[in-house]
């Protein structure tokens, strides 16, 4: 069995709209998966089922052998989620305090919390700003703080929902660097995006969602030619028949 098993997952919103419809997907430990799709294709809805923030209308998500619905708190310890809008994810009055929010919820003792926060802030290179107010950080720094807040909970899977939105070139590179660092240390990464250009060259797998269904699932190189059939722009280099370069080169 894979680390994450999604079986016939369906989600219908209270107004009757079908968010996702019969999704079957397996994700192995340590994989770097990009989930692409146009706006409203069900990317965010799918992610929110991985840690029990949404309850499926049908089907289930099995996380490391146990259904998410059976113990959502366990799922949230395993799957850390970086939201699209970093501003609304930040709850602390200082950078340190925000990174400590998750470990405090896990009822760890003060010393363990301090250790985790120091480590997490070091990974995203924010230790220098630990006493700063998050409110005045730049967009890239806020996104890195959101990542640190998740890392401090030491999850095995890190899920990024549109991580590059509203970021400038430098901010995108910073976030991409954090992703690759996490992948290198063995974390499983799931990244949703409608802009493949920035990340696809680093991914192991590409999953394309269209109208709530998985329409393509495979190696990025095999699928790039088809992305525009589903409302996702093909990377420029791929259009010209070349390899997509990394944004970090």
């Amino acid at each position, binding site marked *: 069995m894979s680390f994450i098993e999604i079986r016939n997952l369906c989600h219908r919103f209270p107004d009757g709209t079908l968010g996702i419809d019969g999704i079957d997907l397996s994700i192995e430990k340590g994989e770097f998966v990009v989930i692409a799709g146009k706006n409203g294709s069900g990317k965010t809805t799918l992610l929110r089922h991985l840690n029990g923030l949404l309850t499926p209308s049908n089907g289930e998500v099995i996380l490391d052998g146990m259904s998410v619905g059976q113990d959502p708190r366990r799922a949230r310890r395993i799957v850390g989620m970086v939201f699209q809008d970093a501003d609304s994810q930040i709850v602390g009055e200082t950078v340190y305090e925000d990174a400590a929010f998750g470990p405090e919820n896990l009822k760890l*003792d003060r010393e363990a919390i301090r250790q985790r926060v120091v480590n997490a802030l070091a990974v995203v290179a924010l230790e220098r700003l630990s006493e700063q107010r998050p*409110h005045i950080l730049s967009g890239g720094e806020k996104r890195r703080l959101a990542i640190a807040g998740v890392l401090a909970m030491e999850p095995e899977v890190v899920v990024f929902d549109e991580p590059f939105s509203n970021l400038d070139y430098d901010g995108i590179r910073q976030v991409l660097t954090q992703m690759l660092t996490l992948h290198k240390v063995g974390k499983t990464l799931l990244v949703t995006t409608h802009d493949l250009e920035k990340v696809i060259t680093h991914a192991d797998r590409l999953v394309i969602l269209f109208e709530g269904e998985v329409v393509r699932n495979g190696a990025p190189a095999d699928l790039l030619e088809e992305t525009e059939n589903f409302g996702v722009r093909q990377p420029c280099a791929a259009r010209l028949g070349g390899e997509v370069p990394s944004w970090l080169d």
Partner: protein
Amino acid sequence: MAGLTALGYISGSGRLHRWDPRFKIVALIMVSLASLGTSLPVLSGACLLMLMVVIRAGVPPGALMRDLKPVVLLLLFIFLARALVTPGEQLFVLGPWPVTREGVIAGAAICSRLLLVLLAGVAVMASTRLSEIKAAVEWFLKPIPGVPEKRVGTMLSLIVRFLPHILDQARETGEAQRARGIENRKNPFYRVIRFSIPVLRRTFLTADQLALAMEARCYADDRTDAELVSDRSDWILMGTTVLLCLCLLMF
């Protein structure tokens, strides 16, 4: 990048920052109560003293002026209302209304009182982490049966956390509306409605997203809270505050 606001914690290591938050909250309540029973000259002096405390707490004077501008306008309105409607010895006439000596004194006293409480609140917020405020509120509410102290503490800390964010959103909405010529509409009710609906909608949406983000990070009532420890210097500072409040009441 957003500008620094006066309404929030400012990192520091001074005496005020190190003061136990429970004492700070008690001191804030005492200063507020003492301000009710003192004269205008003493209140003015207390306001100046409190302004110095606020600046010592690390609040930039420019940010303080900018963020408190709406409050200053409100105080001005209160002052004018009192000065114009209080009967007494007439000083001069403003349009059809007489401005009285008693009205000016009463208006200035009320404004000074509100300003003192406001500045004391800013000093507490600037020098106290949200987690400490939350822990202190929980400590005060714990002995009261039937009150979910953890939940109340969280609600309170989130309100304080969101003030700068809401102010930012209000500023952005105001700018967007000015860019589309809202100033050409002279009806204040129209402007207030057009301004408040998007600000409220954005605030509620942000609150929803925050609730999800907190849930994603395993939020629960039972969590590791800030440790509250008081020592002799906290009591000495408390004693000094009590003495100052007594001075306020005596003069």
